[in-house]
């Protein structure tokens, strides 16, 4: 665990240095464009967290391993933190480039809904009562239906914007295509660093969950004695 955390910290510092000193300043958007190197990797890591939540939930229902449940609830917490950062960095970028903190663009809206879903799952975990195995199972069902709903929500929100054309005040910047080499390299470095960081956070949170479960079990044992 320690090597992973050290690697993640080193990679993160390296990525920050790359973003600050290596990546060129974009001609039109200026320095604000550099938020892109943080925002996109955060969004990527959020989707990884949702995938881990789904995997943990399926593992809980299929194999009934407590470890799978610890993965699911840790992934949801890490994912909600990452999704919050995605929204915040996106908002900062939007203010600098579009001139507004928020716009109801399809991708923004579905990210916001995803945030509500992840936070809802975390709330469910903290408010559910009953034996831990039952909670793990019901939460796993919730995790699976939430993950299954994400693509449907994305589709409906995209149609919501496109099937009913309304004056588009701001168009999202055309990323992806035509990215200069140095920008692409910075993005890749940053993607790697953030993936490591998210993995380190997830591993730490799973360790914490193990301790929580042991404490819980010890408390039950003491109460029975």
């Amino acid at each position, binding site marked *: 665990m320690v090597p992973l955390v050290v690697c993640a910290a080193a990679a993160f510092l390296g990525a920050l240095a790359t973003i600050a000193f290596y990546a060129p300043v974009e001609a039109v958007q200026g320095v604000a464009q550099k938020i892109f190197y943080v925002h996109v990797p955060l969004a990527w890591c959020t989707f990884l967290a949702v995938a881990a939540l789904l995997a943990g939930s399926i593992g809980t*229902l299929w194999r009934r391993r407590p470890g799978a449940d610890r993965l699911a609830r840790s992934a949801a917490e890490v994912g909600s933190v990452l999704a919050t950062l995605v929204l915040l960095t996106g908002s900062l970028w939007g203010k600098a480039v579009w001139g507004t903190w928020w716009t109801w663009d399809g991708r923004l809206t579905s990210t916001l*809904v995803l945030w509500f879903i992840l936070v809802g799952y975390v709330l469910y975990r903290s408010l559910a009562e009953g034996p831990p195995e039952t909670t793990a199972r019901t939460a*796993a069902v*919730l995790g699976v*239906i939430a993950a299954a*709903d994400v693509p449907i929500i994305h589709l409906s929100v995209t149609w919501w914007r496109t099937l*009913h054309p309304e004056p588009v005040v701001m168009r999202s910047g055309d990323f992806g295509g035509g990215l200069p080499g140095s920008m692409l390299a910075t993005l890749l470095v940053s993607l790697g660093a953030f993936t490591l960081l998210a993995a380190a956070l997830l591993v730490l949170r799973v360790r914490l969950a193990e301790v929580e479960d042991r404490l819980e079990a010890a408390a039950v044992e003491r109460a029975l004695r």
Partner: protein
Amino acid sequence: MRRWGAIVLNDLRLEWRRPGRVAAIAVFALLAGVVFVLASDPEPEPLARLGPGAFWVAILFAGTLGLGKTFAEEERDDAMTALLLSPVDRSALFLAKAASTALFLLAVEVVMAPVFFAMFGLPLLRVLPGLAALAALATAGLALLGTLLAFLTARAAGRELLLPVLLLPLVLPLLVAAARGTRVLLASPVPALADLSAWLTLMAAFDVVFAVLGCWGFERAVEE
């Protein structure tokens, strides 16, 4: 199938004996409409723009209030245990609960729709066939996902709050499709049928996904 029907009939009989519940929820939905009108401009144009969305938001909020009862009733006298012990397939039990919830919500919609449309100055009769199709698919989806979430939250602290917090983001596709579909119906003398069928298809897909996942999830969640 007969047992499935028995559960639905039993739930409907309970509602029939206490018609106050349908009435109270319909009154709540209408109040939500009044609140929307008062918070907006009482001019025909803004009301006509707001109406379709407000109609479905009111149903969604009203449905969320009604859903909490689905399993809370059964927890009393431990009727849920009896239901689980009865020789009914778990999926059939889930579908029966969803069906009675859907019928309950449809009754609320039938009661409130004429008044609601009049409040917003929208022509109900002209859009009735299309609206009925939208209502059938939206209500089925809301009942399916809502029933599953009502069961999952039945044992959580503060379930009255947790159910809407979990349900609202997950049913957004239905809200978007129903509101946009209604707007398409009202848009012109000749509604854009391609757009309408796209929204209907989206809701049908949602319903199929959550009918399957609902049965599957319910079976796994009730295991003791």
